[in-house]
């Protein structure tokens, strides 16, 4: 047995060598920092270091649960993540199919390129653009609203608008780039299937419904699971930059709260306790999604 492992090592040593940098990356940047979660069970003092700091058990987890705002923060995070998922997941599928159906190739390529652009802009730039566009006194959007004869809307000072703005801009930012994976999947659909469908008298719509969409189901499922795991991975930058005290009721999510208490407030232990709790919820989500997908279809992540 031992020798067979050694033999296989020897046989695949070139591949293993290729794998090494990636492995190293994960160990250094993803696994080693995980030991940091130990400070959520300690009264972490920066200058005493991790080992010298005192154990305090679940004190900081209790703090979070006792916080009258805890539920509000968790709710904001879950809702924002869920809505974002609901809109961000189907949007690229629709766009990719539309691209695929587009016959005028030059125009299609142009639109595709333009739709990729926002993805490469930083959140800070996007947020500044949004703040300018949405300003009640000087923003274009409000000027248009006023031309049509309505009162200007103070988008960024109304808690009920925060999620809409956050998600709408996220869709605009991501949708183009996310079509890539579906376009690749679409390219792999066997053209014979379309020919067969046409023989049977299927129009464009029927072809889309019965050939195109089923052809990309595996890609859809994988993206579904991957995105479900990332539901709580909301961009801190945008929530932080677009939120203010007027919208804090909906804009305060776990990451902004962790920033305030952990970085600004200097309670590192407390902040890591909150973050770890959210990571556990995230893990639960992706695990159950994978279970369901394995039961229902054949595709799953593991």
């Amino acid at each position, binding site marked *: 047995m031992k020798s067979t492992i050694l033999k296989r090592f020897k046989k695949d040593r070139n591949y293993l060598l290729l794998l090494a940098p990636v492995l190293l990356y994960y160990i250094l940047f993803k696994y080693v920092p995980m030991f940091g979660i130990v400070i959520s069970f300690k009264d972490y003092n*920066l200058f005493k270091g991790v080992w010298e700091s005192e154990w305090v058990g679940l004190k900081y987890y209790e*703090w979070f649960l006792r916080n009258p705002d805890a539920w509000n923060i968790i709710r904001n995070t879950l809702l924002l993540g869920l809505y974002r998922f609901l809109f961000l997941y189907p949007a690229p599928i629709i766009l990719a199919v539309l691209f695929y159906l587009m016959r005028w190739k030059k125009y299609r390529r142009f639109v595709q390129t333009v739709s990729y652009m926002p993805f490469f802009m930083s959140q800070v730039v996007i947020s500044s653009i949004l703040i300018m566009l949405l300003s009640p006194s000087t923003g274009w959007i409000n000027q248009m609203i006023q031309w049509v004869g309505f009162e200007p809307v103070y988008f960024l000072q109304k808690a009920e608008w925060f999620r809409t703005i956050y998600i709408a801009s996220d869709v605009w930012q991501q949708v183009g780039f996310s079509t890539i994976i579906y376009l690749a999947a679409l390219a792999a659909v066997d053209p014979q299937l379309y020919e067969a469908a046409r023989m049977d008298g299927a129009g464009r719509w029927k072809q889309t419904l019965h050939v195109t969409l089923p052809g990309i189901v595996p890609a859809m499922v994988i993206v579904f699971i991957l995105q479900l795991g990332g539901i709580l991975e909301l961009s801190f930058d945008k929530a932080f930059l677009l939120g203010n005290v*007027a919208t804090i009721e909906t804009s305060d999510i776990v990451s902004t709260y962790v920033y305030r208490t952990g*970085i*600004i407030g*200097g*309670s590192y232990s407390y902040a890591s306790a909150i973050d770890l709790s959210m990571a556990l919820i995230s893990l639960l989500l992706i695990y159950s999604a994978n279970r369901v997908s394995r039961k229902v279809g054949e595709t799953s992540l593991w």
Partner: protein
Amino acid sequence: MKRSKFSWAAVTLLTLVTVSCSKEAAETTPKPAGSAEPAATASAPSDLPEAATIKIYTENNTGWPAKEDWGVWKWVKEETNITVEQVLATGPESLALAVSSGSMPDIMSVFPEEVQKFGPQGAFLDLSQHMDKMPNVKKYLDSKPDVKERVTTPTGEILSIINDGAGEGNQAVWFYREDIFKKHNLQEPKTWDELYETAKKLKEIYPDSYPFAVRHGLNTLNYIGPSFGIYPELHRNPEDPTQMKFGMQDPAAKEMVGMLNKFVDEGLMPPDWLTMDYKAWTQFMTTNKSFITVQFIGQIEIMNNQLTEGNLKFMPPPLGAGTKGYLPKGGAEIYGLAVASTTENLDASLRYLDYIFSEKGRDVQSWGKEGETYTLVDGKRKFNENYKEASDLRVISGIQTAGTYGWFDFDAWMALVKESEQPPYIEAPKYRMPVAGDLPMLTAEEGATIGPANDQIWKYWTTETTKFIFGDRPMTEWEDFVKGLDKYEVEKIKAAYQTALDRQIANAK
């Protein structure tokens, strides 16, 4: 094969040569004109201490962007032989990141709440142990018992030294457009009711104006609160300075918030007052869109210089509640300097502190040097022509910016304030609230009992107050809001600071 190896070597060699050349070139680049080579060789004392380099962490203010060739740093070098590398804050989290990364700059500009936060963790050096090396600092603290009281922790440590001297500029005041008021025969409002009536009249005359403008978002409540006799958060009771109170629990807070609600509702304040910054505020003030404001004292002159017509004038704070309308208690500085506990340049850091708190250092860091920044005219110092207004001292030479001085000579600043702009500096102190908004220092244990409650209650009162002001929550629910403060442990927080205050008073006796 051999050939390629040779060419590789050549390329490497070439690169090396270029790099070292460009480095040399950079080092010998002539200094920009105006920053003439230090005349130190002639005038500097020959017994300069050993050369050293320290890093100083300071604010990053867009009003006076930091420059490497600022005079203040050059003078430090001439006087102490210390080269200063300025490290700039990039955001509110900069200090926290510096502290947690373990590579702190040697000296840091800090606010008292930052000392409270990171001090107990051991981030800052206990300077009381090093007073023998800083005789000038010791002398300074002994001559300023109020500063000493503010920097001494419950356990007798001194983790930072709060600056002094430039506090006069740190005073928010009320001012208005005198010409517009005269033109329409309006009087200086004495009370908030009059302020409201005046603003309404102005709005009628200038329908697209917002007569009253502020620029610090919700923080503005710290500046207008005193006209109602309160600060919004925790502070000493002005009627009985031995007691702590939470401003929002005072009935006067309801008056204040109700008033602001009326102002916003009727368009007497800009709709985006919460997010307005300095630029937006300047625009409102200089384009006849706003006529009354609360702002730092130096801004009266700066705005007057920008106004093409008309002028701004100081006014006493209008009375909102109680018997006297106050201004916040300015006149004291809040910024201080701390030394990193991990510093490797301990001697140089202490030497720097000792220098800026010395008589000589005070003079040089406030005025600059004769011939370079000022000349003597009839025995009186006169700044050179290129300093047109007081804030030019900051922009051009870095004078009176964070970290560059310890004990400022405010006469230097006033020397550039026009005579016509000086009255506010005499008037404002008459209206100062008896207490400031700063808090007594907690012990580590007291800090631990409060835990995250400070942030929680901050979030609660700011959110709800904003809603009241914008009219998203009716003022009739104010009492519910005040009751809600209990849920956020307002009494526990108050009690912790009361204990700290009692101790501070007892220690001062």
